[in-house]
Every structure is written in C-alpha cells, then in structure tokens.
C-alpha cells in the first residue's frame, strides 16, 4: 500500500484546531500522522506543499452529475474529474436524476457509475417521496441500506403538509437526515428571478423571499413536531438566516448551507437577461447577500455547497425565463471561497470548515478532518495561483458559469481521496 508524505505545507484542519506549517503522513489510505513520521514510515510519494495549504478534502452537499438520464449535459466521468480538480473528495447527489433516486436499483446504479468513474465517494440522496411528486413516501429504509446518505425532495416543493409531516416522521424513525430546500409551491409561482426591482423592471416572473421563509417556517414547526433531523439546503435570503438562528437559539438543532454563488452575486447581476445568472433559488438583494455572509461567519449557516448544475449549451440558449436554472460551479468553489476570505467576510479556517468539517458533521461522516485514522481525503491548494476560467482549464462538461473568461485566484494542486491521488495539477 502507498505511503505518502505531504511536506512543508500550511496545514489547516479546523476540526482539530490546527493551523501550522508541517507534514502529513498517509498510509493505507488513511491519515497516519500529522506530527511526526510514524515508526518505519517510508514514503513512496512525497508531495512538496511549500507555500501551499493542506486541508481536508471538500465535501459538497449538493451536486448534479446529470447521470443517469441526461448524459448529454454531463457524465460521471466529466464531473468527477471536475470535482477532483476542485479538491472535492465527497459529493452528495441530489435525487432528481432520471429516473429519480426513489428505488434501491437507482441508488445501486449510481454507486456503480461512481465506481466506474474511479470516484467512489458519491453519496446518493434518496427521494423523500416517490418520483419526487409529494404524494407517496419512497422506500427510505431500503434506500438508506443501499447507501443513501439522506432524504430530500430536491427542488420539488411538497404541497401537502400532512405528507411532509408523515415523511419526516418516517425519516426520523430510521434516523435519516432530511435535506430540505424551502420553497412554497404557490408563492414560488414558477418564477425565475427574485421579486425585487430588477424583476419588476424586466417583467420577469418573480419569486418573493417569502416563498422560502414560509416553507422554512413550516418545516421548522414540523421538525419540532416530528423530531426529524433537518438540514436546510441553499438558503438564499436574510429572513431565512434569522429564522434558523432563532430556531437554534431555542434549542431546535437544524443546520443550513448556502450555495457559493449566493455569497457573491445579486439580482443586479442578471441584467439584461443573462441566462448564466438564472439560478434557483434566485439571486437576491445585496442585503440578503450580506446577511448570508454574516450567517456564515457566525455559524448559523455552517456549510457552503457548490450546488453544481452543469448544462448543455442549448439549456441556456433562450429568453431568460425559458432557460434552465443552475451554474456549473464545482471548479469555481475554492477560488470563490477564498474571495470571501480576501474580502474579510470569513476567516480561511471558517471557509475550509464550511467545505469539510461542517458538512461531515451534518452527514455524520468520519471525514472532513485530518484526524489520524480518518480516510486520507486531502486537498492541497495554492491560494495565490491565478487562473482563467476557460476551456483549457475547465473539466466539467457544463460551461454554464457567469465566471467564464474571468481570472480567479486559488487553485488546487493535489487531491487525494482515501489516500489515492485523484488529481495533480500539471
């Protein structure tokens, strides 16, 4: 088995409160030591991490890899390569694949696809309801036993609260985590932009922030009632942050994440009709963005996800409301996190924790830290290295990013998944 020595890097491991220059020793796919070389350690690979940062591999709570069902948009092969190059070692796959992840067979298929792509750490999220239709419960226990890490109804709102209640009770019975993206079906009104000055000017069907906060409120009440563990995914507005903060304050243990682009972009960026900025939940106001940043800094929002949604060119080629929402965002995840640090919104340790320690905690995974004995999921990156987002540097099949042709700072140089090098910057 391989022995890897990563030397002279600045090790940042928030879970163990480590921030110092030093070495990491990896044996048999696991972290062997972060201090001294273990007795008899003979490195067969040495990675020089001078002037670089060594941290736990990133754990992404929300991705779409487009397989099964939409391989013209992207494939496991293309997207896992994109993930590896972005320092992401674990991904949670949303259940809105085609077919939906509502039977163990589909979950098995996904595990197979991941194995074939040589990237085994893709965790399917099981559909909460059959076909995500919000009518009947999925076979959650069987799905859990096949390796699904949580349950979710993805972007499909559940209109009937009684069904949501039952689903949460059932999930709680099997200690399943519910990942919930709050969005009231009726108030959401098939909108494509934040209900604010920009949507008003451009006559775009709009989504008020109340569509999110009302659904969030309802889910909080049901969490209290059912004792189901709840994690809110892709929070987008100020009042959601306040409500989650209050819930935590009064003893309801719920967690939340935010999609990286919500921390950088606002409704003002979409003009005029640039479909690269069409995302759901929609980009909201500057005040919302600032509140999300504060929520992240204070820990109310514990994690950042990429909310990676690669698309083919045609999906974004049309009048704004007719285009498909989503950004191909794995590869810009690290530089955009570092931008938050350089803008003093969060500390570097907070940023790394939000991408590793915190999602691991939410998912109850023995990873997200450089603790001896843990799988050696490690990311080494150069925080000062600038690169241009272009075809030469891009691995995802989806080029749908508002950052195309922009120059960003911070690039992954090495990624190890369970001790296996899955990426090395040439």
């Amino acid at each position, binding site marked *: 088995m391989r022995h890897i020595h990563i030397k002279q890097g600045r090790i940042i491991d928030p879970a163990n409160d480590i921030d110092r220059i030093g070495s990491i020793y990896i044996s048999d796919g696991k972290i062997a030591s972060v201090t001294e070389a273990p007795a008899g350690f003979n490195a067969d690979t040495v990675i020089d991490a001078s002037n670089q940062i060594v941290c736990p591999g990133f754990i992404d709570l929300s991705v779409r890899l487009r397989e099964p069902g939409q391989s013209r948009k992207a494939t496991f092969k293309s997207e896992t390569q994109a993930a590896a190059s972005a320092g992401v070692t674990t991904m949670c796959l949303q259940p809105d694949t085609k077919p939906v992840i509502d039977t163990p067979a589909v979950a098995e298929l996904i595990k197979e696809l991941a194995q074939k792509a040589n990237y085994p750490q893709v965790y399917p999220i099981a559909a909460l309801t059959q076909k995500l239709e919000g009518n009947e419960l999925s076979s959650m226990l069987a799905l859990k036993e096949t390796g699904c890490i949580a349950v979710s109804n993805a972007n499909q709102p559940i209109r009937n609260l009684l069904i949501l209640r039952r689903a949460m009770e059932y999930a709680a019975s099997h200690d399943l985590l519910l990942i919930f993206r709050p969005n009231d079906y009726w108030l959401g009104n098939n909108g494509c932009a934040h209900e604010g000055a920009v949507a*008003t*000017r*451009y*006559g*775009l069907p709009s989504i008020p922030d109340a569509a999110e906060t009302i659904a969030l409120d309802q889910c909080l009440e049901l969490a209290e009632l059912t004792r189901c563990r709840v994690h809110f995914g892709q929070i987008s507005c100020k009042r959601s942050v306040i409500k989650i903060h209050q819930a935590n304050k009064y003893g309801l243990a719920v967690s939340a994440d935010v999609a990286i682009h919500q921390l950088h972009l606002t409704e003002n960026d979409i003009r005029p*009709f640039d479909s690269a900025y069409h995302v759901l939940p929609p980009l909201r106001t500057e005040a919302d963005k600032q509140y999300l940043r504060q929520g992240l800094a204070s820990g109310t929002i514990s994690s950042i996800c990429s909310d990676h949604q690669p698309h083919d060119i045609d999906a974004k*080629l049309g*009048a704004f409301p007719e285009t498909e929402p989503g950004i191909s965002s794995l590869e810009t995840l690290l530089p955009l996190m570092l931008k938050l640090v350089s803008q003093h919104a969060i500390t570097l340790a907070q940023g790394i924790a939000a991408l590793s320690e915190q999602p691991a905690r939410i998912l109850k995974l023995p990873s997200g830290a450089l603790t001896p004995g843990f799988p050696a999921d490690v990311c080494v990156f150069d925080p000062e290295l600038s690169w241009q987002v272009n075809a030469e540097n891009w691995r995802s099949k989806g080029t749908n990013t508002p950052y195309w042709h922009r120059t960003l700072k911070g690039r992954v140089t090495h990624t190890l998944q369970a001790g296996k090098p899955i990426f090395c910057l040439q």
Partner: protein
Amino acid sequence: MTDNLQLNAEGKLKHFLTIEGLSKPLLTEILDTAESFVGVSDHQIKKVPLLRGKTIVNLFFENSTRTRTTFELAAKRLSADVLSMSIATSSTSKGESLLDTIRNLESMFVDMFVVRHAISGAAHFIAQHTAPHISVINAGDGQHAHPTQAMLDMFTIRQIKKDFAPLRVAIIGDILHSRVARSQIQALNTLGAAEVRVIAPKTLLPAYVETLGVTVSHSLSEGLQDIDVVIMLRLQKERMTSALLPSESEYFKCFGLTEGKLKIAKPDAIVMHPGPINRGVEIESKVADGPQSVILKQVSNGIAVRMAIMSMAMQPQGAF
C-alpha cells in the same frame, strides 16, 4: 453586455428593444423623424423610398392584429419588402427552436426582424444571437417592453401637449402584466415628465414598483388629481380567475374611467389607451369616444412612429 446592445459604435440606433438606456436626444430624434413621416400617409402615393430593396420580416410568436398591421404598413410605406409570419408557439418550445427559426430566416437575406414574443427577454435574445447586419425591433416581449407603443404614445402626447416638462401622467390598471406601462414609464421619465403616477390595486402592481420612477395611488379619485394625461391599460379577463380581482364590476367601480371620474383630472386632460379597449371594464364608451379621447390618433400615429424607428435602425451603419 449592456443595453447599449441597441446602439452601434457611433451611438446610433441599431436595434430597438427597450426604452431603457436610450437618451433623451435619441428619443426626441425618433419623435422628430416621425413628425416628418406624418404627411406621407396623406399623399396620393403613400410611399417614400428609404428602405427600397430591404427585407423586413415580422415575426409574431403571439397574436396581434393592430401592431402587426401598423408595422406592415410602416414597412411598406418605406418601400421595403415585408413578410409577416405568425408562428404559433407552445410554452414548451425552447430557445433552440426560436434560434433555429431566426437562423433559417437569416439565410434568406433578411435585413430586419420585428419580433413579438410572449416571453420577457425574447427580443434581447434574438438581437444577441442574430447576424451582425440584422436589426431587431421589439414589438412586445412578455411583460418586459413594448417600446414602439410607448414612442407612439409619447408622439401623441407631444402633438397635443407640446412639452413634457410640466406634465403629470397617470397610468391606470394592470401595471403588473403590462409591457406597455413599463416602456411608457421609462419614456416619460427620460423625456422629463414632471410626474408619472400609477393607479391600481396592489394585486396589479409589481413589487417595488416605485423603483421604476413612479408615484403610487390605489384610488382613482385621489390619483387623478392634477393629471394632464390619463393612460388606461387593458384588463385581461383572466385576471379575475387568478384571484387578482374579485369581479369586473368591482374593478370598473374602483378603477374604470367614467365621465365623472375624468372630471377630477385637469379639464384639458387627454385620455389614451394602447388598445384593444374593453368597454365597460376599464373605460366607459362615453369617455373612449368622447372629446378628450385621443385613442384613434394613437393608432394612426403608430405608422409614422414605426416608420421613424425602422428607418433609423436601418440607416447606413458605417462603411463596410
């Protein structure tokens, strides 16, 4: 890309997609040019040879009789060859097919597209993706803009009131769904009207409507005070079934323009409507056909204004 997409390198009109981002001198130039075309329709030979040899395609993805007809007449009076196409579209038809339609027509050596589409942003999308020598005129996109309608309204207002600076203009009715209202508001603000007031129940106003540069009233009798120009908007029947309004009769009672209500506005106030009119819903016949109404004038001005915009957008675009 910004709204300067509409202008060429010399700052001249290339596409006409929205009023937003266009300067007061440019809007004034459109109105002045339209003025020079007013006489053309009175001539025995109702044609000028400005666009002879040019091919204009009217692409109507949404039904319209009046707008299409006036665009067609305007193009013919400029001596262009015109092809009008009504393309039935379902909500599932996506950008690919829109783009494919455009690409196919492009290869038939078209010089200008006049586009009406039910989705906001469709005209921008076409302008961004069409061949560089082609001009795009927005004849209404979703709830976004209807800039030629707004310009013909400005033209009509200027004909009667001469100067925009002292004018208080009320726009009444379904602002939320109205591309006409959005373009009118932008045009009136650019041309320097003293006040643009919108009068409607909250259900028919978009969120943060005041950011468009308007004052807001929810009462017709309050809102009509000191008003020089009254613009009524058409109320679609389906607004009743989507819980935006309780009934036509209640709407008419609150926001319908009657002779009595009109007396609250200034005595020389004019009444406008982009049409088609719902008599007895937003306006009573006595007012629509009354002495203060300029509704038919709007229609005839539509030809001159569209001639102006088409000829300006197709003026020689630099030397190739």
